[in-house]
């Protein structure tokens, strides 16, 4: 790493060579200014004119957001539009102007007073509003001070710019013009923050958590952003730019080659049909997933509905989110996982911090303890199920009791919908996510209660090996090819096959060729991967024989170490793909 490198967190893969566009979405400095008595009326009129202008701007942005992202996203702006019309706010500013303060000073003072009240509150409902106040402060003060408009709308089309900003608030994110912005870089953020998920789903390369990008990078300077490595290179040499562009076009060619497979069926060389499904993080990803050629969704997460929000989503909002995905797949199966989060992530109620959250009060445990919250989600799912083949998956199940309790709540939700006369489907398949050694070893106890199994390899590996998957010190100990993990998967597949229960694998493991080969060899016939990995998996499936994969998997099962298992599998893969590179290159990171 040279001094020209800025290192952040890789959030969305891809290379972009382009000019920096710094978006300073921060409250401007207000010079203190007093006015003469005879200027007061004019200053008040100027303030009202600016409020009108800000409202017009916000309404235009709201309409644009509604067209591009939908009604829910557009609602982000409603609060700000209301605040602009607030009688108290206007009265307070007017009274300060009458005491000879300039409009911008009066507005600044008033906003500081409000902000003080809001930040004192501990409730997340109030803290979320602080973001609205900041947005409004920036908009109105910029207009009062006649500063240039910083909205990201103003980058020229075709610029392929790297948008550099402190943090992308949802209200900024929905304004991004994809024809102008090639990549995103932010000071704040993590891999799972809203901006990272959105960038991935829109296919925009992004690096987050850069800490000082807005301070170090200058508007207009050329940089290379590497979304896979999580770096930005300043003052790139001509050679470096050429190399980055080559890598970028190689990746593009690879994508095109894979796209050519779109109409082909995922069948092994010896005729075994495999089902490939896509994982979906947010509803906006549904179209991308459908376009990838996936036969349905193997895992739709629902955490986006509750994380970083002040309030729980109601039944209607959830129904719209689920129905949107179900409708994108025209009758193909869409498996939706109920909330897989800890109680501390919920917008409602103050739940205590846990010493050991991964072994704690989370997922199905939390949902069953908070039935009034879970039943709203189940009701919304049953309603969306009327539009296609929706299936419900329960996370972190360790005992069949939990499946029974969930089914009882599901029946209650169905009865409630029937009473209200709301269209829905009552007999939605209920499945178990096999992601603990308990559920894998005792998977036979779910027979007759669960209609399908879905193996979550990430958590299964973490819980089996007692290795925290987020701990970088342990990264090389975290391997699904450990004999213990492979045996748990083999057992689940075997019990499923014997009892006519479908077994899918929807973890990270499914999208890495060596791991995917192991899964196919162990008898898994349905894989669910990130949308951009669907074509790569199709190439893998079409290039290997199920019989040879089974032999390799048997070898791996008998190996004494993960390393030995990987050697056996890799040899089988290289045998099927002598060029090697074509299956290993361009791997999603």
């Amino acid at each position, binding site marked *: 790493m040279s001094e020209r490198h800025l290192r952040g967190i890789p959030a969305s893969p891809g290379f972009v060579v382009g000019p920096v566009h710094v978006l300073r979405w921060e409250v401007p400095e207000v010079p203190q200014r007093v006015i003469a008595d005879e200027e007061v009326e004019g200053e008040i009129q100027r303030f009202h004119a600016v409020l009108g202008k800000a409202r017009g701007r916000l309404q235009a942005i709201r309409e644009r957001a509604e067209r591009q992202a939908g009604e829910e996203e557009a609602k982000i702006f*409603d609060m700000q539009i*209301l605040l602009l019309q*607030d009688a108290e706010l206007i009265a307070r500013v007017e009274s300060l102007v009458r005491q000879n303060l300039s409009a911008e000073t009066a507005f600044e003072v008033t906003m500081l007073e409000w902000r003080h009240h*809001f930040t004192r509150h501990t409730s997340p409902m109030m803290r979320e509003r602080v973001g609205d106040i900041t947005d409004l402060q920036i908009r109105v003060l910029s207009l009062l001070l006649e500063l240039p408009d910083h909205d990201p709308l103003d980058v020229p089309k075709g610029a392929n710019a790297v948008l550099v900003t402190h943090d992308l608030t949802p209200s900024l994110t929905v304004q991004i013009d994809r024809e102008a912005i090639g990549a995103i870089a932010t000071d704040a953020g993590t891999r799972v923050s809203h901006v990272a998920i959105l960038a991935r789903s829109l296919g925009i390369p992004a690096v987050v958590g850069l800490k000082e990008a807005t301070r170090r990078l200058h508007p207009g300077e050329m940089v290379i952003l590497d979304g896979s490595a999580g770096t930005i290179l300043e003052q790139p040499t001509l050679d470096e730019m050429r190399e980055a562009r080559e890598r970028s076009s190689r990746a593009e060619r690879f994508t095109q080659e894979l796209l050519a497979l779109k109409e082909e069926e995922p069948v092994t060389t010896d005729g075994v049909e495999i089902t490939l499904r896509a994982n979906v993080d947010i509803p906006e990803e549904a179209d991308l997933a459908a376009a990838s050629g996936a036969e349905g969704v193997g895992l739709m997460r629902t955490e986006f509905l509750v994380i970083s929000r002040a309030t*729980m989503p*109601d039944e209607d909002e959830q129904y719209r989110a689920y129905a949107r995905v179900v409708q994108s797949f025209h009758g193909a199966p869409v498996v939706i996982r109920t909330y897989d989060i800890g109680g501390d992530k919920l917008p*409602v109620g103050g739940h205590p911090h846990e010493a050991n959250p991964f072994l704690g009060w989370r997922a199905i445990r939390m949902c069953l303890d908070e039935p*009034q919250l879970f039943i709203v989600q189940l009701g919304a799912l049953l309603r969306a199920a009327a539009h296609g083949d929706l299936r419900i998956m329960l996370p972190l199940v360790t005992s069949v009791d939990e499946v029974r309790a969930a089914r009882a709540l599901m029946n209650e939700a169905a009865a409630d919908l029937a009473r209200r006369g709301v269209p829905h489907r009552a007999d939605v398949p209920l499945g178990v996510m096999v992601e603990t050694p308990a559920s894998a070893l005792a998977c036979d106890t779910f027979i007759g209660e669960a209609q399908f199994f879905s193996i979550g390899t990430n958590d299964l590996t973490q819980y089996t090996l007692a290795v925290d998957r987020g701990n970088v010190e342990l990264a090389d100990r975290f391997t699904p090819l450990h004999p213990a993990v492979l045996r748990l998967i083999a057992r689940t597949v075997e019990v499923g096959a014997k009892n006519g229960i479908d077994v899918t694998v929807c973890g990270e493991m499914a999208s890495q060729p060596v791991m995917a080969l192991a899964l196919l060899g162990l008898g898994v016939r349905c894989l669910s991967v990130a949308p951009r990995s669907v074509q790569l998996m199709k190439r893998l499936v079409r290039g290997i024989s199920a019989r040879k994969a089974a032999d390799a998997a048997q070898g791996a099962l008998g190996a004494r170490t993960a390393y030995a298992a990987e050697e056996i599998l890799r040899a089988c893969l290289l045998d099927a793909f002598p060029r090697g590179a074509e299956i290993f290159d361009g791997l999603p990171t």
Partner: protein
Amino acid sequence: MVTAAERTVRIMNVNGLHARPAAEVVKVASRFKSDITMVRDDLEVNAKSIMGVMMLAAEFGAELIVRASGPDAEEAVAAIAALIANKFGEKK
């Protein structure tokens, strides 16, 4: 004729007085001529101000006093109390 009216209400919707319900309160309050305030503990705010209503941070179960004084005070208090009792038309 100026009259005064007052009523104690309890927030019954799960999400509390968040952005949308607060906006509903302001919309209803603004239809009346009377001065209308809402009180929680020792905080009294203008019910016609979205900032004011939000500042109450009234969660599920919170108890508030709706207070009005003016020509239509009685009707104003009744309308806001009804809105809150109906959970702002939300489900659940």
